[in-house]
């Protein structure tokens, strides 16, 4: 009671100085935020600037931060080249398949782990979490060897096949998506599914009719993550694929647009920008889900 009284008395007593402090704090905040925004946005902005330049302008020693003769030739060239479209196509199909596979595996598993206490469920949940901490750079060599071995034993070509990647990426996406879905499912009030089961719904019906609709925001967050992770993956495709027609975007751009020591920077930056576009567009529309997912599961940073 007494603290409440002081709370009310406080601001009125020092109102003038406090609001002046506040105004200054706000000005300083804006000042530093502008500085940090410049730091954070320089590379993407520079990508855009370079992508609009011709190679003649890039090699001329003019101000690199300004476009004197803007041209779309880099875009036209890339978007009409079969190679680049091939990379884009490979990346898109892989990411879509990965999202579907991830959801099919992680939603039922998260449901079971969040609601059905069974033998070993706690251990499994911890295991999922630990799997999520294992980085790709630890597993790429044994996985490479495994794919080669399967190829030797069965004659089925697995190395240098882009679609094989779609079945390896889930090792990166499933643990995280399961983990955040467990969190979302656990936050659904128990009364909801208890009522459903009393009404005679099966476990599957409970999942489809109650959990998925109620946890839809979490589901969207998980989908965005699965997509961005598989879109951005660089190490596995670099190791598992080599032919030009089997590459995905990040690897394709870094390996084919750089020919020897010749860097065609205009095209490289255009390619990088187009490669960054899908996640950026998704993020622009679904930022809140993306951030909710980030903070819900503490993704890797």
């Amino acid at each position: 009671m007494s603290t409440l009284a002081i709370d009310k008395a406080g601001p009125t007593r020092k109102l003038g100085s406090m609001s002046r402090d506040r105004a200054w704090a706000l000005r300083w905040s804006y000042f530093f935020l502008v500085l940090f925004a410049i730091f954070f946005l320089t590379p993407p902005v520079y990508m855009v600037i370079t992508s609009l330049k011709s190679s003649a302008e890039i090699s001329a020693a003019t101000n690199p931060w300004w476009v004197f003769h803007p041209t779309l030739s880099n875009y036209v060239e890339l978007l009409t080249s079969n190679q680049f479209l091939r990379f884009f196509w490979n990346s898109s199909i892989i990411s879509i398949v990965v999202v579907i596979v991830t959801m099919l595996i992680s939603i039922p598993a998260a449901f079971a782990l969040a609601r059905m206490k069974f033998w070993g469920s706690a251990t499994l949940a911890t295991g999922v979490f630990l799997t999520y901490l294992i980085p790709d750079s630890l597993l790429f060599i044994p996985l490479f060897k495994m794919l080669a071995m399967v190829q030797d034993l069965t004659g089925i070509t697995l190395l240098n096949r882009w679609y094989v990647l779609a079945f390896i990426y889930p090792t990166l996406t499933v643990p995280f998506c399961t983990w955040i879905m467990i969190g979302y499912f656990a936050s659904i009030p128990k009364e909801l599914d208890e009522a459903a089961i009393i009404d005679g719904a099966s476990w599957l019906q409970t999942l489809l009719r109650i959990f998925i609709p109620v946890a839809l925001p979490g589901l969207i967050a998980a989908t965005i993550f699965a997509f961005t992770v598989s879109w951005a993956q660089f190490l596995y495709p670099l190791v598992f694929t080599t032919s030009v027609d089997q590459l995905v975007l990040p690897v394709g751009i870094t390996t084919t647009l750089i020919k020897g020591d010749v860097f065609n920077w205009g095209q490289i930056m255009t390619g990088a920008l187009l490669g960054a576009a899908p996640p950026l567009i998704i993020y622009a529309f679904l930022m809140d889900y993306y951030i909710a997912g980030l903070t819900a599961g503490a993704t890797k940073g």
Partner: protein
Amino acid sequence: MADVVVEQGRHVSSVRPRKRASLRNTLGRKSTVAFFLTLPLILLIALLVLYPAFFSLYLATLNKAMTKFVGLGNFTFLFKRETFWMVVKQSCIFAVTAVIFKALIGFIVAHFVHNIPGKKQRKWRGMLLVPWVIPPAMSTLAWLWLFDPSYSAFNYTLSFFGVGPIPWLGETFWARFSVILVNVWYGAPFFLIMYLAALKSVPDQLYEAAAIDGANWWQKIWYVTLPMMRNIIAITTLFSLIVTFANFDIVRILTSGGPLDTTHLFATWAFQVGIQSSDIPLGACVSLFMVPILAVAAIFILRDVTKRGNEA
């Protein structure tokens, strides 16, 4: 509550004809359903994570042609090489420095964003999170171009301040500086978002109370913000430590480990040894050295995570 109801339901159904009922019982039993729901997950983890992890241990004990068992031969070979110790050192410098700067920048920027009134906050937050959204392989290419030796936009800008051309990726110190800078740029937004979420969960009354007690800006951060954010700071830092330590994309694209292998991390060196020089056992051996650090960080994270599990 739900369990009791299910038990009753099963009791009722067992009155029906035996065979069909027993099949339905097994299929409908909670543990069976749960088993089938988690089976794909278990298979995926066992086949594509656990098996390769142990397989990697086995690979590390073979000779280069993978025909002979050499025991710890690969490990003793690594210990004798100077490059290996340089990689150990560089991985630690890289991870620790990058994580400290990411955490600091994230913490500071989170406060600035938190100061901004509600509506504009969303815009700033969106802008500052952009580096985190762009695939790192793509954004690192932009950095590579900014660092370019002959047309470097950075050196061009610096020349106006009378600062001579800096060999960004050509000299050990600057190359190390550059890979850390790019990693900080990429990872700081993640800390920003995590800290911003934590800041929002600190009740305003605490700050009001502190202000009335005459606390200044530093005291508010030290006695109110930091204790309230301690858990988030710890878990985010540990997470980031794991990922930064295992980083591949940035170093691979920016320097490929050069100049003279001085910027190699475990991942990039393992790639060079194992895939490019096709000495798979030695490469597996190199990447296994990440395990101890990952394990220590994982144990600490798990302590926090089990706390969350108990609350749920």
